[in-house]
């Protein structure tokens, strides 16, 4: 599923847009607020759904190989987080839904969680 499709399902607002050339399809999603959860379990190239918006979330994403982040409940990151995401080329979105609903909608659309070995 492409970011454009994900964004539409989640009625999401784009905060940091993906590079035009970089439209890799997503197969795996990680819903988490605990950063070690992302680092411990999840396969690279996943989408992260989270309620945290601080810069260290972007760093976690970079280390874990997360390719895009959706913030829930209309949360908007601060300028530092946005700047870091632009620098690391990690697209950011904000959805009005909570993590449960956002996860439910993407699961319904066929996405799953792929685990790290």
């Amino acid at each position, binding site marked *: 599923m492409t970011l454009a499709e994900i964004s539409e399902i989640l009625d999401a607002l784009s905060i940091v847009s993906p590079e035009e050339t970089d439209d890799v399809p997503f197969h795996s999603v990680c819903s988490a*607020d*605990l950063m070690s959860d992302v680092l411990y*379990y*999840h396969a690279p190239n996943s989408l992260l759904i989270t309620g945290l918006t601080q810069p260290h979330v972007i760093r976690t994403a970079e280390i874990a190989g997360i390719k895009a982040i959706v913030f829930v409940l209309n949360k908007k990151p601060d300028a530092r987080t946005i700047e870091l995401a632009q620098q690391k080329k990690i697209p950011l979105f904000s959805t009005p839904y909570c993590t*449960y609903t956002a*996860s439910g909608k993407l*699961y*319904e659309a066929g996405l*799953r*969680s792929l685990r790290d070995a």
Partner: protein
Amino acid sequence: MKLGDIINDVSLDVKTCNVCLDSVITGAYVSDLLSDVMANAKDGNVWITLQTHLNIVAVASLKGVKGIIIVNSRRVDEAVLKKAEEEGVAIMVTPLSAFEVAGKVYQLLK
């Protein structure tokens, strides 16, 4: 839908003893942050989280959350289970990730 039906349909492993599984569940909330759950979880929600800290029971109890689903097969301490039994909060464990449990519960409740 009753909590017991969700447990059966999603194959959750119930860790608490003598906690009523007949509560009606009207929705779910996924979060690992206690303050977020305090602010946003609703009465009748089942709570999906990776947190196994003792405080999850108090938060659930305060918010009228009748069940907590612990994901990724995380081990839950005896002290947490004992507190949950006292407070009447059911604790269930699943090997699934938060995303997948949320997905399955969402399908059941919609």
